[in-house]
């Protein structure tokens, strides 16, 4: 699908952080239902990604379950991550992590790389994305390996 350059540019600008003085988020381009390019320009590390998915602070398995035999407590609020790499392309996984709200405004999945449009964020987390660009790339790399 071809998109006009101005349309793509508008989307890039929309992705820029609105708050001045905030941590700068890496700009990205949304095309169709995904973000094709790595946020860091580098491929992520799937092993680090797996550790991140299992870390409570990343919040993934609070809601999702997956092929993680060592994780005793996994959530059932959201679909299992098993097979995520078969169901979605890396570009689709990346947009889902970065800003799932863009795909479904009613979703309960947080936007992991977005700092605008939020209400009463606690001071420890203000103006920070939930995950860094590097962490998102690591998780995308790991999820892409979950094939069925």
């Amino acid at each position, binding site marked *: 699908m071809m998109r006009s350059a101005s349309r793509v540019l508008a989307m890039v600008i929309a992705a820029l952080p609105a708050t001045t003085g905030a941590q700068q988020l890496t700009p990205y381009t949304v095309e169709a239902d995904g973000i094709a390019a790595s946020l860091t320009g580098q491929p992520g590390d799937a092993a680090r990604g797996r550790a991140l998915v299992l870390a409570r602070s990343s919040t993934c*398995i609070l809601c999702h379950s997956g092929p993680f035999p060592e994780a005793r407590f996994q959530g059932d609020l959201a679909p299992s991550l098993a097979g995520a790499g078969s169901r979605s392309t890396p570009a689709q996984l990346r947009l889902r992590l970065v800003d799932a709200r863009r795909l479904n405004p009613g979703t*309960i999945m947080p936007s992991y790389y977005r700092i605008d449009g939020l209400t009463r964020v606690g001071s420890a987390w203000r103006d920070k994305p939930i995950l860094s660009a590097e962490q998102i790339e690591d998780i995308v790399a790991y999820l892409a390996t979950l094939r069925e």
Partner: protein
Amino acid sequence: MMRRVALAIALLGALPVLAGEIAPAERRSGYDFMSSDSKAMQDDDTANPAMLSVLDGETLWSTKAGAANKSCGDCHGAVDVSMKGVAARYPAFDAASSAPVDLAQRVNLCRRQHQEAEPFAAESRELLALTALVAKQSRGMPITAGDDPRLKPFVARGRELFLQRQGQLNLACSNCHDDNWDKHLAGSAITQGQPTGYPIYRLEWQGMGSLQRRLRGCMTGVRARAFDVDTPDMIALELYLMSRAHGMAMDAPAVRP
């Protein structure tokens, strides 16, 4: 066209509650979600740790305090008579401030106005003990908080807050407690957030705590700036939750995981 209108009316009739709200017949207290061990702990007054707080409260009830040198009992008499059903209608409208006050605030208003004593600190042993004692007198009674028509705008505000997304994780109370109460967050039952048993003994706290403490914990959980203690929005949210549990039986002081 007519048929479509008729269909729309029929559909509306089939939806007695607002989208996302829990139907009255489906409401369940936190007790219902607990393990049999925790239920047994709550059911047996000699095993329920919250009963130690109630005993504390009985002592405080009859202890003279303040410049007025009066005890609660000097005005209110026997707690099991005068306080029967009271907690089930709190937060209640306070005419002096034209706003709702919760049970702990009422205790402290009484201390200030009638005992001429310093108010107890939020979450203090004394305040939890007196509220636990008073709440126990509503055990088994239906919640009626919010019935007072003067409370209507405050209930509405509380509902607005309940539906408002907040924090870095951008979640509203309703996202979990209306829409996903039958699911699990990392293995723990989410529950409906029906505040039937406050103040509670919470196993995670290894101690007693108020509904405000529980709500602050939830807000921090979604990485939001928690409402400050006793602020109007905090009271409005407590009031909305109690009115949402309208008719459910009180089981205070409850045990919760």
